[in-house]
């Protein structure tokens, strides 16, 4: 019988387009100190640390976590890094959960950090093309990198394949409305990169196409920052909660799936994001959830692209496949709807500090459950080429 595991502390640094003032060493330390303070704990009480860092090239070093071990005060203890593309944060949380549930440790730090925009393109004298290039090194190195593979064009492949099957879904007016809605949500997230960047659906519609069919205001922005959770097994978690007065938010379901990276018969089914579907339903099974639309109150979804948000919501059972637009048209995620989707503003408005992103989502999900007195939140991460990786956690507040 595995042990219950819960979140007892959480913190994030501000997510900023560029942190000139801090390296990733200090960003990681800032968020860790904040999360430990939230949990009323000393780092001396922590048994293990799990690092969520996506890309060595962003940090400009291989095994980028090694200096953090001592900087976080975790020398001579367990430390392990997870790197699974965009899903890095969600996967790291799932790894930490497994170690604690198995009884290996009583407490763990889950530390996500990314310094994504230090890289710079000296030809266009701007950072973004170089950021996209760095992520481009994640594509298949024999068959795809040299022909211009990017995260955006590989997700666009999936979205367009979905639109081939469902030509009446993902209407531009609806994706624009979802982006505008998220820009309203972000207003209450003081740590977000674009807290004050509210946009109208018309502005989204008029924004330029970056990679067809994605427009600029429908894409997550790359960010620098850190996010940390403190996890504890049941007995320890309850003791910490008694001390802080903050309820434990339990991790009651965990699921993951990685699809094939090549497409075609018996391989990746392009119009689907099976990784998200399988990950979500595995997490539902573990959490005993039959009807996600009824059981879940908050979804903190990795919105790399608005179109993908719609497909992922359908894959996770919040609307039918082919009816992603019902999220708006039937009011599922509009104010007062059944699902509060990305109250933090999502990665489109909070920013995508890759390794830290899903952990920031979990920070938001946990805080919103407590603040609003709601029952369940879902945290989601997606990553790799053609949405290959998916990881989902169910958070529960009793």
């Amino acid at each position, binding site marked *: 019988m595995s042990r219950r595991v819960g979140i007892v502390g959480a913190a994030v640094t501000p997510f900023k387009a560029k942190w000139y003032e801090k390296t990733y060493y200090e960003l990681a330390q800032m968020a860790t100190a904040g999360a430990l303070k939230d949990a009323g704990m000393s780092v001396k009480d922590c048994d293990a640390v799990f690092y969520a860092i996506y890309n060595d090239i962003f940090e400009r070093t291989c095994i980028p976590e090694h200096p953090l071990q001592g900087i976080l005060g975790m020398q001579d203890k367990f430390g392990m890094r997870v790197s699974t593309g965009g899903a890095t944060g969600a996967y790291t949380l799932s790894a930490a959960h497994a170690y604690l549930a198995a009884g290996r440790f009583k407490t763990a730090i889950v530390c996500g950090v990314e310094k994504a925009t230090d890289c710079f393109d000296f030809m266009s004298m701007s950072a973004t093309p170089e950021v996209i290039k760095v992520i481009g090194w994640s594509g*298949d190195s024999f068959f795809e990198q040299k022909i211009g593979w990017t995260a955006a064009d590989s997700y666009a492949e999936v979205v367009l394949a979905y639109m081939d099957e469902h030509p009446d879904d993902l209407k531009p007016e609806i994706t624009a409305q979802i982006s505008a809605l998220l820009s309203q949500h972000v207003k209450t997230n003081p740590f977000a990169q674009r807290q004050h960047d509210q946009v109208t659906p018309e502005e989204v519609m008029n924004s330029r196409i*970056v990679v067809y069919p994605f427009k600029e205001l429908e894409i997550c922005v790359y960010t620098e920052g850190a996010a940390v959770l403190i996890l504890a097994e049941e007995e320890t978690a309850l003791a910490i909660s008694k001390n802080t007065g903050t309820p434990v938010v339990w991790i009651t379901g965990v699921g993951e799936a990685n699809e094939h990276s*090549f497409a*075609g*018969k018996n391989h990746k089914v392009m119009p689907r994001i099976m990784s998200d579907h399988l990950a979500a339903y595995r997490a539902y099974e573990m959490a005993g959830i039959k009807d996600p639309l009824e059981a879940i109150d908050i979804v903190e979804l990795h919105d790399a692209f608005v179109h993908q948000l719609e497909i992922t919501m359908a894959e996770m059972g919040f609307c039918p496949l082919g009816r992603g637009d019902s999220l708006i048209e039937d009011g599922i995620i509009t104010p007062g709807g059944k699902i509060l989707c990305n109250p933090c503003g999502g990665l489109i408005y909070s920013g995508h500090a890759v390794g830290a992103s899903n952990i920031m989502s979990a920070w938001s999900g946990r805080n919103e459950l407590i603040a609003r007195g709601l029952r369940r939140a879902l945290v989601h991460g997606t990553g790799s080429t053609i949405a290959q990786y998916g990881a989902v956690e169910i958070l529960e507040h009793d």
Partner: protein
Amino acid sequence: MSPETRKMIIPLEALPEVGGHIQTIDGQDYLVLNDAMFTFYQRSQGEFSAFFLALRDKKKLLGCKCTKCGIVRVPPFLTRCPDCDFAPTETVEMGDVGRMLCTPPITYFANSLFQGQVPFGRGRLVLDGADTALSINIYTTKGILVPGIVKKDTEMKVVFRDERNGEITDIFCVPASELTPEQVAKPGLLESELDWEAAVEPALGAPTADDEAKFNAGLAELSALAEEMKGAERARRDIAGWHRVVQVKSAGGFLVLEIDDGDLRVRQGSTDKPDFTLVCTDISTLVNGMAYRGSLTQAIITKDLWISLNREFTTIFKLERMARSLARTKKV
């Protein structure tokens, strides 16, 4: 060979100089250093050697067929079939015509290595007789690639570059409908055998009084916008370090846009040495984009705006970012 004639893995213009700068935030100085993380390879192509050598030397595409289940994978990315407990596969020779597995995306804003190539498509082509899809670049011979030209199930012909290095970039594909039946049937069709439509500057008719009125209004708005730029710090950053002289031609008249390290200047007339030319019948196509009422990229896609050099999409993106920053400054 001298550095000037050698074809370099890293383009020389991409390389930063040794140096750095100071960024001051809240009165505190922070050091920012120019840097690079570089590694060179003599990279083994291993089991893929036959595939890449066939591209380079024989202008042929190879696949692999599972000896047990018969599935044909192109590219031949494995030698044993994991679906059949790692039964061996055998090499098969493929044709070079196929159909798109799904509608391919088109990249307009590329990473730093591909900025000279936008817009380009990359999609998945299922060659006739194959079960899996080959990731491949997509072009049209008829001008700028826009949505709708290549869709799911569009028949495509693989074309070989004249100069081949044994890399995936040795091939790309174009719609079979743009070729003659002989070209579609010809094995190993070369890039130089295609009839690429030359970029021809669109002709503008004689101006009407209405065109001229529109032009004058547009010129006035652009001039006002250039004036606003002087105090718009964020928008100035979007065109910082950038220098371009752009000739703009519209039915109602010509103007010159000058981008100069944060400054934007507009004047009526022509210049004899522009970096590139933009042509639109109605000047408001340009003005709307610059005022963030529309998208310049979108106007190029819909052919309302013609650009003489595709690589100057970089400048278009800078102008669009600038337009958004300027609009935001005004909103706040």
